[in-house]
Structures are given as structure tokens and as C-alpha cells.
């Protein structure tokens, strides 16, 4: 089992890249970090526990019926959504934080501008769009643009409730084997506490980066 620095490195994925460059989650990149409690960083691909927790689900709703047989559709693990989503946002001047902590909740992907620019958050879900929407709605307390990223087979049911997404000012990203695309842009909303909330997160992020350096220095890899 990987521990310490190895686990940390496995969380770091480049966000800005040319489209023909394959994403290698094991490559370190200074602009991407895990913002969770490092002790909870699991050495899975992308190093994020919750992102890999529902790997390979069966979509029991999306079934094809043929001659009385029900054929369940295999959904990809949540981690499969991450790379296409990151590729979609090729934003220079941003840090991408995985599993950013917002009180007791974790934001799957948070993109923080180094200077000026909107904060962007994305909730990754392969199937449960309503749960993702709820989390994404809470994320608007922090982010200026909040999205849910869903596997493409679940997009239609989400778009059937487009007005609900609009009412919560949450956008939708469709993810497939071919990549990710925005199918609904989020409306920009004004939240009175947001800028203060962003300041708090930045302070925490600075603290975590300090901790990261500390971890690197100490090297927690087993001897």
C-alpha cells in the first residue's frame, strides 16, 4: 500500500495540457493538490477515496429489455469522470483541488484562480444527479460557477429537470468515453458570504500546502 508522499503524488494530475497528451495521474504537478486530510488520502487511482468509492456500478434504471431479459448497463467508476472533466477546463492560472473540504462536506473538484477569475466547482456522479445537484447547490456558497458532471447515459434524465438545475444555478457537464462537454451553463449568482468563504478556503489551502511541503521534506515513504 502506498503511503505518505506516494499517495500525495497520486493525487496530482495536470489540469492544463494539450489534447493529445494522455492524462497520467501518477505525474506530479504543482498546480494540483488534494485538499483533504492527507491521512485520508487513499492510494487509489487519482488518490481520492470518495471518487473511487462507487466503482463500476450497475445502472439499474438504464436497462435495455429484450425478449423479457433485463440487461443492466455497466456504469464507469466515478474516477473515470475526473480526467475528461479536468481536460475540459484547460484554465491557465488556476489551482485544481480534489476533495476540497467545505465544513463537513467535500467538493470533488474545486478550481481556484491564482489571481482574478471565477471559482469553479464540480461534483462528479455517474448516476444520482439529484444528490449531485444538492451538493452542487451547496457549493455555490463557495464557487461562482458550480457544475455537476454526469455520465452521458444519465444526462437525459437530468436535462428533463433542466428548470430545477437552473433554479439552483447549477450547470451540467456530460462525460463519455470521448470526453466531456458542458450541456448547461450555470447562472452566476450573488451570495453575500461567498467572498469571505473563499478567503477562509484560501487560508486553509495555504495551510495545507505548508503541510504538503512538510510531508515532502519528511518523506513518509516506507524505508
Amino acid at each position, binding site marked *: 500500500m502506498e503511503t505518505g508522499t506516494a499517495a500525495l503524488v497520486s493525487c496530482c494530475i495536470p489540469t492544463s495540457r494539450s489534447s493529445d497528451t494522455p492524462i497520467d495521474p501518477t505525474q506530479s504537478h504543482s498546480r494540483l493538490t488534494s485538499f483533504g486530510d492527507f491521512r485520508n488520502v487513499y492510494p487509489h487511482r487519482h488518490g481520492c477515496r470518495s471518487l473511487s468509492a462507487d466503482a463500476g456500478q450497475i445502472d439499474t434504471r438504464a436497462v435495455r429489455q429484450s425478449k423479457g431479459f433485463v440487461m443492466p448497463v455497466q456504469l464507469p467508476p466515478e474516477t473515470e469522470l475526473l480526467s475528461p472533466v479536468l481536460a475540459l477546463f484547460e484554465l491557465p492560472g488556476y489551482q485544481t483541488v480534489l476533495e476540497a473540504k467545505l465544513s463537513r462536506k467535500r467538493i470533488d473538484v474545486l478550481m481556484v484562480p491564482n489571481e482574478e477569475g471565477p471559482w469553479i466547482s464540480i461534483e462528479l456522479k455517474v448516476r444520482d444527479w439529484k444528490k449531485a445537484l444538492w451538493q452542487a447547490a451547496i457549493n455555490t*456558497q463557495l464557487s461562482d460557477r458550480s457544475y455537476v458532471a454526469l455520465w452521458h447515459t444519465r444526462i437525459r434524465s437530468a436535462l428533463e429537470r433542466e428548470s430545477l438545475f437552473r433554479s439552483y444555478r447549477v450547470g451540467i457537464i456530460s462525460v463519455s468515453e470521448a470526453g466531456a462537454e458542458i450541456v448547461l451553463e450555470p447562472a452566476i449568482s450573488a451570495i453575500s458570504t461567498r467572498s469571505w468563504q473563499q478567503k*477562509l478556503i484560501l487560508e486553509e489551502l495555504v495551510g495545507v500546502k505548508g503541510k504538503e511541503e512538510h510531508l515532502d521534506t519528511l518523506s513518509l515513504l516506507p524505508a
Partner: protein
Amino acid sequence: MTHYLFYQHNVQRFFITHIEKFDGILVPFSIAASFPAGTYGFLRALLGKDQTKRFGLDPRSALFQQGWNRSNIREPHRKMAAIFGEPFTTVGLLRALTPQDLPAARINELTRSCIQYQLDFKVQKDQQRKLEKYRKLLGIDTVPEITNPQHFIPPYFRFSDVGDEWYEISMNCTEQATTIVPANELCPIVHFAKWPTTNEWQTVAARLKKAGISSLFMYPNNFKEHEAKEEDLQKYVESTTSIAGAEITAIALHGGYLSILMEKKGLSGFGNGVGYGEWRDSGYHRGGTAEIRLYIPKLHRFLDPASAQSLISGNPEHFTADSDLLSEYALANKPLTSVSLQEALDHFMDSRQREIETVRDNTLSHLTQELQDTIEVLKDIGQLEAETYGPSLTRWRSVLSKA
């Protein structure tokens, strides 16, 4: 409505600051046994400051009938077992106790040990250094002996049905306890896995009254007021009215706002933890510090700060109306994620007191209308808020509105 707080040794200052906002204090055996000097010293000073405050020590003996990982038993549980003696110290630390582990002779010994521990608690030899510390902390001149009214609580176990083996053992413990302390000072905990029927409560009440018992704690296992189905809420109402109708004082061992509302149905008191702990699974054996949660008075529930902020931004006027803390944060545009643990605990205690006073001073129809008002506000904010927070308020309103 008598409000009991469960004692936690790590927030002693909280009990001092809010001393006028609760009526009684319940101390789990695990804490009393693990921190005997500190618990005794603090409680003696606290109870000396207000000699009307009631207190009791909760044996939590039901823990040992449950199947939990005993490979790494915590010290508080070893000390609890030591109070009870065998078979707790032997098989109880190795596996879940069965009714066969507690024959009549064992029940007598167990009950005697448990009650004697409670009797001895208030007459411990003075530990002058500790007493002096707490005397100063509470700002009192002298620390008198404990003379406050004490609830003696016999050992108890979780039963599935009135009449089953665990029920009989629990009742036998209570009956045995009447030979040790006056029956009117006993307040047994009736701990059930599912709500007894009205008829079953009549059976329970008749047996307790025959033994001279005049009050009891109701303890439905892991009963969460916001998650309970309407049929279980209905049974809560029926149970309360049944016990009160039998002229037995009914107290909910763990409860929240619904339990406060149950005053209108005959409930006399309820207990909760500091900042959390409105329910408890008697098989829960782990400890730990709770994360910050914010009590939302209009919802009568705790939310994590981010969810609380999201909700309040939907209708600040409504959701901050009953809280100084929430109002101050909203006015300053300060995010609730920056609320400190101390602020959250103080806010909860203020909110709880306000809830108790509101229920005391208003009719049930007024109170259920308040629930309905919040349900309407949630609908106006959005579908997800209404679906997430509305159903429990709707269920409460429904069962309470019935005659």
C-alpha cells in the same frame, strides 16, 4: 418540562455557563467510572451551586448485551464492567451477554452492585484538591454535600417485546432495586427495540406501579425524531399518553424538539447531549469528538455549517429570526463555516431553552402552525430544501394534530 443534560467531562465549562438552562444532569457510568475524582468533584460543586438540580447515573448496562468488536475494549468499558461484576467482567468483555448469563442470583448481585455504586457516588471521600478547583471554577464559597434529588437507575437491557427474556431481566432488576432504595427514588430506564403497544404499556405500568415505581425513562433504541416513520411517531404519542394516563411520570431519555412538543401529550421531561445526542444506539461503543454542527431553530435540527449557510441564504429573515448568533453572522455576511465549537454549543443551548419556553407558553395548534409555516418557507426556497427538510416537520405536525 424537565430538561436533562448528559454530562461530558470535556465541556465542564459549558455546564457552568448554562447552569440555569437545564434542570437535571445524567452521568453515564463510563464517564463516572473513568474519571471518578473529576466527575465527582465537578458534580458536587455544580449541584452545590443549585441544590434543586436532579441527577442520575446511567448504568448503560445494555451495551454488554450487544455484539460489538471486543478485540480492543476501551478502558471505560472495562471499568463499567468492573462495577457490575460477573458475568460482565468475564464473558461480557468477550462476547454479547445472553439471558442465560443472568440467572436470578446474578440479577440480584448485579442490581445490588449497580445501585450501591450510585449510592456511594454522592458520599465519596472528599478529594480536597479537586473540590477546591471546582469550588473556584463555580465561584462558590463552600462545597456542600450532595443533597440534590437523585434518580436511582437499575441495570437495564434492550428488549424486543414486552414479556421476552430481556424484558423480564430488566423488570427483575427494577424490582430487586426496590429492596435497596425507596421505590419512589427509582427511575428505571425502559429500553425497547420497537415501540410497545398501548396494551403493552399498560402491562409495564401495572408492574412498575405494583413495585411502587412512579417514574420511568423511555428509551427507544436509536430513535431519530427526524427520520422516524409516521407510524412510529404515532406510537411515541400513544406511549406517552398511556404512561401518563397510568399516573407514571414519563421522561424521554434521549430527545429533541419533538420530545419537547410531547409535553402537550403528557411527557414530563427529556434528555440530550451537549450540542448533539438526541438519540442513542445502546450498542454504540466508540467515543470521539463531534464535529461542529449548527442547530437551526426553525428546522429544530442540526446541520453542518455549509448546509446551514445554503439554507439560510434562501430566506435569511425566517431562518435567523430565533437566533442571535445566526442573525449576527447574516448581518455581517460572515459564513457559518467560521462558527467556533464554543459558539455552536452556546447557540444550541440558547435555542433549546427558547424551544422549551415557546412550547410551554403556546398552544399545540400554534406550535404545529409554526411547523407548517416553515414547511411553506422551504417550498418557496426550492424543491430540494422542501424534500430534504420538510417531511419530518410534516410528520410531526400530522401526529401531533391528532386528538
